[in-house]
């Protein structure tokens, strides 16, 4: 975010752009307000015997500084709709996606991949080692999140992905990685005394490498 963490998913670009838009707008507001404040403190500092202006307000400026920021704030909200819709509302179809089940519990992540039949919840599902997650690059991934005990939150900073895992209430999150590499998954919702070490190891890799890895895991079973 803000150039501090690389953005390696298709949604990262738009999200980081929105961050910059908000940063620029709030930055202008910040320097304007603090600048005027400091200027006034110097300009109108106390002088014995001087009387302050006797003014109670000004209707015109009140209207100006209500309407302009109001429209800007409303516009800023509307400006976010599209990216939010892409990130959380419009899911890619399962047919073109890799659907992966991730189960969270105190204090580990368990990923389950579909076997040969391409379906989850069947005999040939492949259970990855604890805290190990592999995602193929270049196609949509749908993660079906669940928790078996308390709330956890599935947070992969480089992918700009975060979604709570809620016990008794499965949730879904989708993303599409755009570059390979090894990264970390953090639990972002306080889940107990081991919350701080609920760490996952994420490998983003090509479809071939991903399939090879899956076969290897399946064979090890």
């Amino acid at each position, binding site marked *: 975010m803000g150039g501090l963490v690389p953005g390696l998913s298709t949604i990262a670009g738009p999200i980081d752009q929105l961050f910059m838009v908000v940063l620029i707008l709030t930055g202008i507001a910040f320097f304007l307000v603090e600048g005027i404040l400091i200027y*006034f403190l110097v300009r109108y500092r*106390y002088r014995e015997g001087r009387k302050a202006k006797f*003014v109670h307000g000004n209707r015109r400026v009140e209207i100006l500084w209500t309407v302009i*920021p109001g429209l800007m704030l409303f516009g800023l909200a509307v400006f976010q709709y599209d990216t*939010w819709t892409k990130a959380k*509302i419009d899911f890619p179809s399962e047919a073109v996606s890799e659907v992966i089940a991730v189960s969270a519990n105190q204090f580990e992540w368990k990923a389950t991949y579909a076997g040969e039949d391409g379906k989850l919840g069947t005999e040939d599902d492949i259970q990855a080692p604890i805290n190990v997650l592999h995602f193929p690059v270049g196609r949509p991934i749908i993660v079906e999140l669940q928790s078996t005990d308390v709330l956890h939150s599935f947070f992969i900073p480089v992918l700009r992905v975060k979604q709570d895992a809620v016990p008794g209430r499965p949730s879904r999150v989708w993303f599409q990685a755009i570059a390979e590499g090894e990264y970390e998954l953090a639990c972002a919702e*306080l889940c107990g005394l081991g919350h701080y070490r609920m760490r996952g190891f994420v490998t983003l890799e090509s479809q071939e490498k991903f399939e090879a890895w899956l076969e290897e895991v399946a064979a090890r079973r």
Partner: protein
Amino acid sequence: MTETAELSFVRRYVFSTDHKVIGKQFLFTAMGFFTLGGILALLMRTQLAWPWQEIPVIGKLLFGSGGNILPPETYPALVTMHGTIMIFFFIIPILSGALGNFLIPLMIGAKDMAFPRLNLFSYWVMVPAFIVMLASFFVATGPAAAGWTSYVPLSILKDAIPGSEMGQTLWVLSMMLVGTSSILGAINYITTIVMLRAPGMDMFRLPMTIWALFVTAILATFATPVLTAALILMFLDRTIGTLFFAAGEGQVILWQHLFWFYSHPAVYIMILPAMGVASDIISTFSRKPLFGYKPMVYSIMAIAALGFTVWGHHMFVSGMNPLLGLTFMTSTMLIALPSAIKTFNWLGTLWGGNLQLRAPMLNALAFVSTFVIGGLSGIFSAATPVDIFLHDTYWIVGHIHYVLFGGSLFGVFAGVQYWFPKMFGRMMSDGWGRIHFILTFVTFNLIFLPMFVLGGYGMPRRIADPYVYEMFTNLQGLNQFMTYALYVLALSQFILAGNFFYSLFRGKVAGKNPWKANTLEWTLDSPPPHENFEHIPTVYRGPYEYSSPLVSADWLAQDQYLDGTKPPEVMPAPAVSPAAGD
């Protein structure tokens, strides 16, 4: 009244119905809890800077059995209790409890609150809350540890975390008592402000502090019962095994809705009074009328009304229907508007003023300048796509501390130093006040500004050891820097405490009106006598007629009669002495 003198010490200073005494009781207990909450923060930040290392000095005292090292289950408890204590036992009690109680009757020209005995009860129902919450530190499994938000199921499953044993039950009980106190206080404030204003004190002649406390009380009346209801459900889930919030059979996310339906307005319960205080102080020390009085009042009302429509912004990634994210984002963006209007009007007040930069004024200006950062950083989290990343990271911790420390706490520093002469009859040292201000202001920013950087890296909040993650190992240096800054900030508070307690006994005698302020409390002796006003004053004008051309002085008291001043048009019913019913 002659019988006053006969009241026993206990009736006068312990179980007193005098709003001024009750205000001071809230003040001193809140100061105690501020210290405790601060110690918890010191422990947390020490852990974040040097995780799992021996803590010098107090480590032995607290964790002697564990090699002077913070045990892993303690960190979530620290997080939980720091938040709970600072919010419910410090900020709300010192703003609404201390300043509200002390100021409302004095500033509206009344002899006491409308229901003095209810007022007494609203403090004394807090005392068991204090005791229960403090007792939870000493139960074997420790205090509550599920966060001040106490999200279920962590807060309900007893084996999920040690704090969810006895500690959480005590937390729930204590919070119910806090809620009861809030509701009682709020009803009393509303009634008092509506019924007991002095003749001529129209609603639109009320000082902003009173307006803010009035709207805050309305907020508390509507929001707190929702929290209380949720607490009762949680209590039942924990004790007799109901399943209101249980995973599967119950509604896990319902707790979050109920909690934030209260706790978002609660943020305004914590900030509105500070806004009122800042408005009064800025006008007084600018020697200039408050710019845009009515827009200021309407902004407070707008904040309160919109405040009930934004709670879902805490839940964008909770599993709540993402369509709702769009509406909650829009309402949240719009609630920034009244705050912006207030900021512009504070600037407008400074414009063309004659600014006396005394300690209360400096703290009020710090309120404005840091509240701006608090507000603007909130826009990032309101923007749902951006919030996907920032949610539950240190960005939020930075944001809330710019609002509650930068905003509310500087407001408290300002208010306490401003009304100290009225409360205790003596002046605090302005020089030491400024030194405290500079040190606190600088170190505050050195602690909390870097939190936005931590958030930008995605460092989650509430983790005992961020460096377990490779991606956060580079943040340890910054965290250590922030912790050093906190040490200096903590030490600086001794200056304030020293100034406060020294001035209590040795400060310069204040006289009635040391700041040459207009509002009614400054027409009374310092401290004001029992029942405040011997004769209920008549109010002829608004509270901010500074530098009026009608008089040669740069102030004009609300109750000063000038030749040709119109008497109040409608004389309200004569204010009855509220204590008469006792």
